[in-house]
């Protein structure tokens, strides 16, 4: 019973972003257009002509992760980005895309990334191994970072909310303190939701910059 509803829930944020039809649209679309223009200018400044072909991918990535994380802060909702499977599914193809682009177009330069400049001769084999490992860890780190941050935030909210409820009968002052902590935590979670989206996209774009 869970599987078809999960598909609906993953597709739900796309309903909240209608496509602009006219020159001057309604307020929702105008706000979203302004935000997307702001973000895309910021994010695509560092790329050259070749990297800017990834603009659509990066923008849809940040909109999807941001909206999914923010929707997960509503009570009882299900956040797809807490599932490691989905984050791996996003991170691995994107990272592999940047690496393969680098190999195809600038083979020598992307292989040269494995060895920082000016290393002493005896250290070279070890350093190449370390750089390879750090390259292959990049998609794992992307996925696990997003999963862990969102899951930890949701968990904290659940636990502290439950503690506040349980403390009301025992001691009202402690419940009030716990409630203040809960309010601050929720504000943090809003920030974290957006920041995680930004970080994911920024890192993908950084890997892209190295390889174009």
């Amino acid at each position, binding site marked *: 019973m869970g599987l078809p*509803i999960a598909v609906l*829930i993953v597709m*739900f944020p796309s*309903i*909240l972003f*209608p496509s602009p039809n006219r020159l001057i649209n*309604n*307020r*929702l679309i105008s706000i979203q257009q302004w935000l997307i223009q702001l973000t895309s200018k910021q994010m695509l400044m560092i790329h050259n002509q070749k990297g800017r072909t990834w603009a659509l991918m990066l923008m849809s990535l940040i909109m999807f992760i941001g909206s999914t994380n923010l*929707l997960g802060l*509503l*009570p*009882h*909702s*299900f956040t797809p980005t807490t599932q490691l499977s989905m984050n791996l599914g996003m991170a691995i193809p994107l990272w592999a895309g940047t690496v393969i682009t680098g190999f195809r177009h600038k083979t020598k330069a992307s292989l040269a990334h494995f060895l920082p400049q000016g290393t002493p001769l005896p250290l070279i084999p070890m350093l190449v191994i370390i750089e390879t490992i750090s390259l292959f860890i990049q998609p794992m780190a992307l996925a696990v970072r997003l999963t862990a941050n969102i899951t930890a935030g949701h968990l904290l909210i659940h636990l502290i909310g439950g503690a506040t*409820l349980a403390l009301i009968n025992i001691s009202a002052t402690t419940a009030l303190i716990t409630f203040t902590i809960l309010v601050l935590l929720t504000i943090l979670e809003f920030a974290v939701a957006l920041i995680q989206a930004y970080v994911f996209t920024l890192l993908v774009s950084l890997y892209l910059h190295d390889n174009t």
Partner: protein
Amino acid sequence: MASSVPVKEKKLMEVKLGELPGWIQMRDFTPKGIAGTSQRVYYRYYNKYINVKKGGVVGISMVQAANVLFNYCRPYKELKHERLRKYH
């Protein structure tokens, strides 16, 4: 309580509560029918609440409220036991 117009041709707001199961069964459940219904529902809501000159926060708030309600009904069987009642 027989209706003068056959049930199939009535719109949803005009179907009486007792006839609702019969009305739902007579709808068009082919993919084309479902697509048509979803499009109609979406555009009716969109053009009434969001695509207006001075839309407010009401348009998306109602969608979010429905979202929360839907996600509450999903694990209702497990949530029932966590209510603050003396006898569950």
